[in-house]
């Protein structure tokens, strides 16, 4: 095999790998992206506990 073919095969492999792990899971994309999560967090209303709770649990 020519070294050039080797390199292009390698490139294809790398691209494929990147494509499957990046594109196939939007879950991973979002849950590893701090900035994106921060932005979304701002839009979510935090659930609150009752203000009447008093004493130790």
């Amino acid at each position, binding site marked *: 095999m020519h070294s050039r073919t080797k390199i292009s095969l390698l490139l294809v492999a790398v691209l494929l790998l990147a494509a499957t792990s990046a594109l196939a*899971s939007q879950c991973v994309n979002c849950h590893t992206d701090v900035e994106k999560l921060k932005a979304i967090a701002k839009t*979510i209303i935090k659930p609150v506990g009752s203000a009447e709770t008093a004493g130790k*649990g």
Partner: protein
Amino acid sequence: MAPLELHEKVLVSPDFLQTTHGEIACTECHGGNDVAADMNQAHSGIRADPTFPDATATCGQCHEEEARLAKTSLHYTLATYKPMVHQRADQAANQIKMLNQGMDNHCYGCHASCGECHVSRPNSAKGGFISGHNFNKTPDQTNQCTACHGSRVGNEFTGTTGSGDAHYTKHDMDCMACHSTRDLHGDGKSDHRDRYDVEGLSSCQDCHELDDKIEQHAIHGEKLSCYVCHAQPYANCYGCHVGLDDKGLAFYKNPDEEELFRIGRNPAPSPKRPEEWILVRRVPSVQTSFEFYGKDLLSNFDQLNNWKYASPHNIQRKTTQNRECNNCHGNEELFLTEDKVKPEMRKANKGVIVSKGMIPEKQEDAEPKKKTKKKSSYF
């Protein structure tokens, strides 16, 4: 335990993706839609905790035994709650129904799943990853165990109240030094009376033999539980009430708490706990605890004692009561005598109450021995 920002709670660390569990597709465990870029679409149909109430589908193919035994773990089933409370209840069907409504609203959120011991903070403490979604072999004492067992066990153990537990403060042992998969992964039983009824629960005797060279050990043998001499005062709560506020949010009130030390009689000596003298703790519930859900739901409150076996996690070698024989002998204050129990509960607590005649008498010749230290040679 410092609160986590919302985004920190769900931030997956890249190194997780290189681990055995991280290489599995998110959707295998959580469901949802992993090609949708929109959050709501991606989240449609997800299981936030795929290990509760049943971990068989998610973990069972590789951890068969853990998933099977979990069904018998009190951390999963909380199976002692209803049978215990029902013994104090008005037995009319509609009354039981109202009581169960209250219990369902307030008691069953406090379970611990595989995920809550190995992946994230418990949901009852608002969740969030411990370490970027990694599956840790050893649970984290602060972020996991005492996130639930905090106000009593945790405070006593670390010394927030009292001087802490020598196992922790002096010998650097955490919860997992004594509690392991043996008790925490479920014992295969399905008829637990209470949480002390778990096979494989830790015991002082797992690690210590009573050293008879110590005079107090030699004299009392196994008549006294270790706690009677080695524990410090511990939390006693009473007056716990639950309900829903005007927004429909669940609340509890537990305003009365006291650090007390009370020696009682063992009402039911068993081969595992043969000692005659134990420590007893006042339980938080009272006849009106569930009043929000109906009148007189616990009308048989006095069917059971409300001073119960206790095992405070604040062990010390030397304690106020074992420092000298007569700090305990003749010291009525330490013992659960009748006057310390509410009149209407005296009958129910008969088995644990110490009559005045039973309190061990002052030891006349037990003045602290002046140690005549033998002069040791330096050579």
